[in-house]
């Protein structure tokens, strides 16, 4: 227990006034001196803070998705019969974790046998994270004695941030296999689509007998035809195409990969032939089997940003400045490996480009895909959301405007864009996108 020097001034003043008061017979000075000395004396008598306390840490979700807020709750219990008047806790968090709400520190007091909780929210990029020891500083009531402890709390000490599954709606470009993707065509299925005039050979169970009873004419019920689609997810893994999050947290590559992973697995579960390509050159043929699933998983797990991509020459000319000066033409794209990837895309295959849209190169490439007859969707985490900051800087605001221009340009060319605001779950934006397609 370390004594804290907070009262030297009062002590010196008190002693000086005492000496003065006694020596010059000014008894009035003694009363002021006595106040100081008695208060200092009482403060010195304050008992040391108890060491009988426990701390437990719990997480709202120990396997969160990248960017998903996790609430960390610390429960502090005073196990002694004396009050803990001053307890100062500070969490030692890994650098890559960002606190988006609340504070990782707290100063509190706990009555005998009582407990208190403190919560704060963090977001994490992909990976495994271990909490460090808690720094706990205790002081007595008069703050004359203090000690620092390094405590390993009970409960959760580490957690993993990984990708999980959700549904990604795909567009109306299907292949001739039965699947689970609804189309705008009538046929065999489960959802009512329309009725039409009976044609010889139609199955008896699809004749609308109610209609026949009312009008005496035969008609056939058609259900929404559900077919499988072939979809290739193109992941933008260019280093130049990614940025760090404003205010900390997972960067755009982590979030892009997360969004792609959700879509890929959902697509597989819907029976779609699903493939993946990265602008860094990786390619997995569309398929539905275990082998495809395994290869997709490997690509997702091992993906890292690359310095050299298929769009390298596009990068050079497609920066914002270059775009303004009229460079970044189709010829530039066609001249590089981007064309090769376009040729590899299966005929009638849909393309889902996963990118944060921080430069114009990827917009040009989406247009290229569209011009080759592929239905193109773009799934894009909005890295200008700015969680954890009170106001965006001027540079960030300019970045946000430019990104909006890119989205407007894509939508103007009939490319659906799922603009994922990081303050909301990815699913919300996907549902919005689905509603847009339905209309």
């Amino acid at each position, binding site marked *: 227990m370390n004594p804290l*020097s*907070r009262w*030297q*001034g*009062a002590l*010196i*003043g008190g*002693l*000086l*006034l005492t*000496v*003065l008061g*006694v*020596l*010059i*017979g*000014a*008894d*009035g*000075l*003694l*009363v*002021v001196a*006595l*106040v*100081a*000395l*008695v*208060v200092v004396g*009482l*403060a010195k008598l304050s008992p040391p803070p108890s060491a009988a306390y426990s701390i437990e840490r719990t997480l709202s979700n120990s396997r969160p998705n990248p960017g998903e807020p996790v609430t960390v709750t610390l429960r502090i219990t005073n196990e002694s019969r004396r*009050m803990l*008047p*001053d*307890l*100062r806790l*500070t969490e030692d968090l890994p650098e890559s974790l960002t606190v988006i709400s609340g*504070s*990782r*520190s*707290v*100063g*509190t*007091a706990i009555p005998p046998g009582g407990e*208190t909780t*403190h919560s704060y929210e963090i977001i994490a990029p992909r990976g495994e994270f271990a909490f460090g020891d808690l720094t706990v*500083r205790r002081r007595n*009531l*008069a*703050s004359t004695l203090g000690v620092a402890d390094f405590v390993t709390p009970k409960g959760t000490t580490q957690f993993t941030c990984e990708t999980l599954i959700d549904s990604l709606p795909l567009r109306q470009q299907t292949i001739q296999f039965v699947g689970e993707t609804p189309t705008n065509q009538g046929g065999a299925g489960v959802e009512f689509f329309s009725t039409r005039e009976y044609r010889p050979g139609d199955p008896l169970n699809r004749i609308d007998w109610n209609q026949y009873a009312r009008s005496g004419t035969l008609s056939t019920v058609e259900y929404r035809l559900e077919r499988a689609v072939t979809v290739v997810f193109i992941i933008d893994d260019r280093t130049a195409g990614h940025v760090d999050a404003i205010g900390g947290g997972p960067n755009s590559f982590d979030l892009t990969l997360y969004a792609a992973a959700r879509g890929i697995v959902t697509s597989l579960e819907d029976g779609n032939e699903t493939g993946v390509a990265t602008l860094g050159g990786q390619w997995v043929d569309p398929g539905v089997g275990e082998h495809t699933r395994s290869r997709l998983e490997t690509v997702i797990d091992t993906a890292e940003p690359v310095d050299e991509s298929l769009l390298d020459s596009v990068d050079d000319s497609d920066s914002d400045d270059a775009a303004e000066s009229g460079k970044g033409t189709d010829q530039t794209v066609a001249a590089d490996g981007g064309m090769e990837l376009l040729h590899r895309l299966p005929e009638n295959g849909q393309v889902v480009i996963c990118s944060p849209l921080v430069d114009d190169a990827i917009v040009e490439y989406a247009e290229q895909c569209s011009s080759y007859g592929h239905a193109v969707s773009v799934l894009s985490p909005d890295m200008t959301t700015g969680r954890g900051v009170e106001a965006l800087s001027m540079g960030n605001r300019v970045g946000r405007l430019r990104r909006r221009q890119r989205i407007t340009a894509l939508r103007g060319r009939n490319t659906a864009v799922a603009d994922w605001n990081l303050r909301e779950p990815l699913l919300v934006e996907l549902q919005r996108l689905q509603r847009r397609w339905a209309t």
Partner: protein
Amino acid sequence: MSIEFPSQQSSGPQSTVDRVRATLVSALSSAIGTLRTRLYSLRFGDWVSILLTLGVVAIAGTAFAGTTGALLAVGGGLSLALTLVMTNSSNPLVSSLGVVTGIATGALAAAVAAFVFYVLLQTGFSGLFAGLGIVSLLVASTGAFLGPIRSISRLAIARSTLVVTVGIVGIVGLVLALVAPRAELRQQATDAGVATGQTVVSTALSVDPAHALSTLFVLLAAALFFAGRVVVRLPVERLLPADRRSTAVAAIEWVQQWRITLVRASLVVAMVTGIGLLLDATVPPQDEAAWLLAYTQLFRTDQLLAVVPPPVGEIVVGVVSSQGVRAGLYAVIAGSIAALITVRLGGALRRGLAWTAVKLAAPLVGGIIAAIPFGLLASRFEAIDLLIEVAPAATPPELVEFLQDVPAFVAGAAVVAVLLVLCVTTLLALGLLSTVIVLPANTGSTALASIGLFGVAVAAVVVDRPLIAVGVAAAALCVWDVGEFGATLRTELPDRSPTLRAETVHASGSLLYCSAGAVGAWLLYRLAVPQVQPPAAEIAAVGLLGSLGVAALLALLLPRA
């Protein structure tokens, strides 16, 4: 139809007015925004500390010096705090507005000084301490109002002093510009300037026994302080070979450490002897405290010779009374200040000529602009006549004659300049206090408030208000305890950490401790103190000096944390 962009709009008189208004509104909103941020950053303990201080200042001030005294103390504290904050702003407009608040500070300082002087004349010895009590109230309220910025560095005080001084230069320039075209006034101004200069020089070099000892130590402290600031900036270690640098750096650090100690020691001695000489000059022989004169007169140089043994006494008195020594110290101070300004100006110019010009011009223009309305106001109320009436006897008649002959507005502007000089004096006094006491870096405002309240308690004792003294002393300790606790929380935990519960518990405990301390002290005072018998006068004198020395030593040896 063509679209007119803002940059293409005509810049007529109306748009210029609009621009000025927009700039002022922008500066004002910036200042309000900063203030709001500061207020929001205050924790519960800070609010308790500030409100407790202001409450005690209001209550004790009213009981101690009446409503006028309390209002003067609170108003003066607020004005001084505002002047400090605004003149330290990086926004040139805000710093120029700080010069305007400096005028209010000067006016309030003048009012406080007049009030203290009045009390002193009315009540003699106890009046001096009543006056010191009012000054302590002002110090305490300044500390409370500086709560949102917490720290009071000597650098900030020096910067404020410089800004206000530049404002004074601006007003003096305005006065000269108005006087220069008229030949007879120009001649009068020259005569007044020469006479004033001579008076200033003779006053500065004066070795009157009534103040020689104290002023010499003030000069010594100032010379050591400024010379040390220059030495710090000299790149001595770079001029030496690499293998000798560490030794040189260690030696410089050692010298600097002892220089600071010497500065503080000189100031402590100057204050102790100064108070003694002040008592010697003000306590009437028939006062009940006249016995003190037997000791305080020992600080006069003409009495020192009779007390100190011949060879030492002559040497000491010779040094203290030497005008040459004083001239040398003044030369060191002036040279050091000139060197420091040159170095700082050079650094500022390297950062950008335009910005430096704007920073310098802002207080200059602020002083000139402020002199216009305040000068007119002062001329309407004929403040110059009041100023001449209360001017010291040593004021040269040429200056008085000149001030009586100049146009009313010029005389009003001169009054404004005098008020700013008083503001500078107040800032220097605050700087002196922060140098002697060494205010902690992160709890400067709390320490100032607490020390101010403690001074009020001591003064209340002298004017025979022991109950007020007990209450104010307990409040002073509580203010320190709660404020310092909040500062450590701020240091150990990041911003926005929830600490309300810990602060509430500590503040409650502190109130309990201090209340119990006050009650216990009062009981002890009533029961035990009547038994204490004062020793003989000679023992008391030795003990007095000894205890002052021990206190000074302890204060010097304390860590600067």
